[in-house]
């Protein structure tokens, strides 16, 4: 059974959360606007170089492109993989990437494709400045006007951390929440199992408060729900019938 007072509480909390989020992002936007005012955005060079591709139905055109890999950690494409040409948010989101492409497109004969590729991977935060060749460093310096610009940059640090830890955090949290849900849905007294699971990480008082308090009680009530019990029994009965049929036919 759902406690009706919870719906009333949720109605009060949700607008407050929405207002807080809007205020938070709004304040950051204002700060960014103030700090970035007076900085003119350089027009991007690649828009002058890449042709505007328009195809009529059934029409076929051949274009030759120079392409770059944006993510060093991903595997190389297979011959059977389908390609699609589309814009990427990396140009806007990854610091210095745009500057490197602009520098290359401004002076295409000056820089080698392989050096540009290394510079692109450098903006990802996976290549160290010291491992780059002098020519690659010169390219980055010409493009960004700085020596080792990526070092200590929070955006690069975050994206690098997110690419390695993001999967782990996502998998672990999904595993924990799904298994917690299964404990509640499938075991007769879930609060006791939850209590034993978390007893090693929090104090005994808090464990008791969680498992024997309102939270634990509501989980036990949910587990004892008649509809849920009926579903469990029906699943068991259906499976048993299926096994019996298969088994009896064999015998």
């Amino acid at each position, binding site marked *: 059974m759902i406690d009706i007072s919870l719906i009333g509480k949720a109605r009060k909390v949700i607008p407050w959360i929405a207002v807080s989020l809007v205020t938070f992002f709004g304040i*950051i*936007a204002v*700060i*960014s*606007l103030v*700090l*970035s005012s007076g*900085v003119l*955005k350089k027009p991007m060079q690649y828009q002058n170089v890449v042709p505007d591709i328009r195809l009529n139905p059934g029409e076929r055109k051949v274009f030759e492109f120079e392409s770059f890999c944006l*993510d060093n*950690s*991903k*595997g*190389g494409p297979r011959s059977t993989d389908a390609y699609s040409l589309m814009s990427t948010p990396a140009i*806007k989101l990854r*610091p210095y990437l745009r500057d490197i492409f602009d520098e290359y497109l401004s002076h295409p004969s000056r820089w080698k494709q392989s050096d540009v590729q290394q510079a692109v991977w450098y903006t990802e935060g996976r290549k160290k400045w010291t491992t780059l060749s002098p020519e690659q460093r010169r390219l980055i310096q010409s493009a960004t006007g700085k020596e080792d610009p990526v070092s200590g940059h*929070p*955006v690069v*640090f*975050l994206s690098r*951390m*997110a*690419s*390695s*830890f993001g*999967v*782990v*955090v996502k*998998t*672990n*949290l*999904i*595993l*924990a929440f*799904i*298994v*917690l849900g*299964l*404990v509640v*849905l*499938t*075991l*007769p007294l879930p609060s006791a*199992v*939850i209590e*034993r*699971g*978390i007893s*090693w*990480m929090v104090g005994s008082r808090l464990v008791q408060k969680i498992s024997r308090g309102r939270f634990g009680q509501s989980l036990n009530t949910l587990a004892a729900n008649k509809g849920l019990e009926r*579903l*469990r*029994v029906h*699943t*068991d009965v259906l*499976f*048993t019938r299926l*096994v*019996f049929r298969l*088994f009896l036919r064999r015998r």
Partner: protein
Amino acid sequence: MGFTEMYSYILSYFGICFLGLGILLSMGLIIPACYWLFTTFAVNEGSVVFRRLLVMLAVIYISFSYLGTPSFYEAAGWWKTTFFGAFILGFIVPVLRMDISRLDRRRDRGLAWISGVWWSLLVFSEALLVSEASHQAMVLYLFTGVAGILCGVTIGTTFAQTARRKIAESAQATGGQ
């Protein structure tokens, strides 16, 4: 810096804090998750079929969502074949050895052990991923195989126990007559 760069620059500091909290939370929750997983697999009371079917679906979902990570793209290709091969193997063994399955057992330790191996391989593979180890195809295929065996054994054991119960009931009914 332009507006977008500045905006993402400031937000990234908050992002780092949130990611840090997420890492701590996931590290803290993975141990109780392991205990809850063992318990849901091992408990042999109540509505066993319902529980095991759901846990099996959860294991399949988590395994394939982890294997679908772009970092493992090069190693992919035989995930499904490995999984189904291991699943069939895991299903057949308990069904063929139905004669040794005991109905009075309150806990199924075999399933708990296999789920422990699955969990350990997952954590080991995550550690390799974080340490940016370039080649972990062997670990991933082992993980896929163990996931397949775990799911197969789960269904196979449940099938064997149900069939065994039927045999016992039939024997009792025949004896009663």
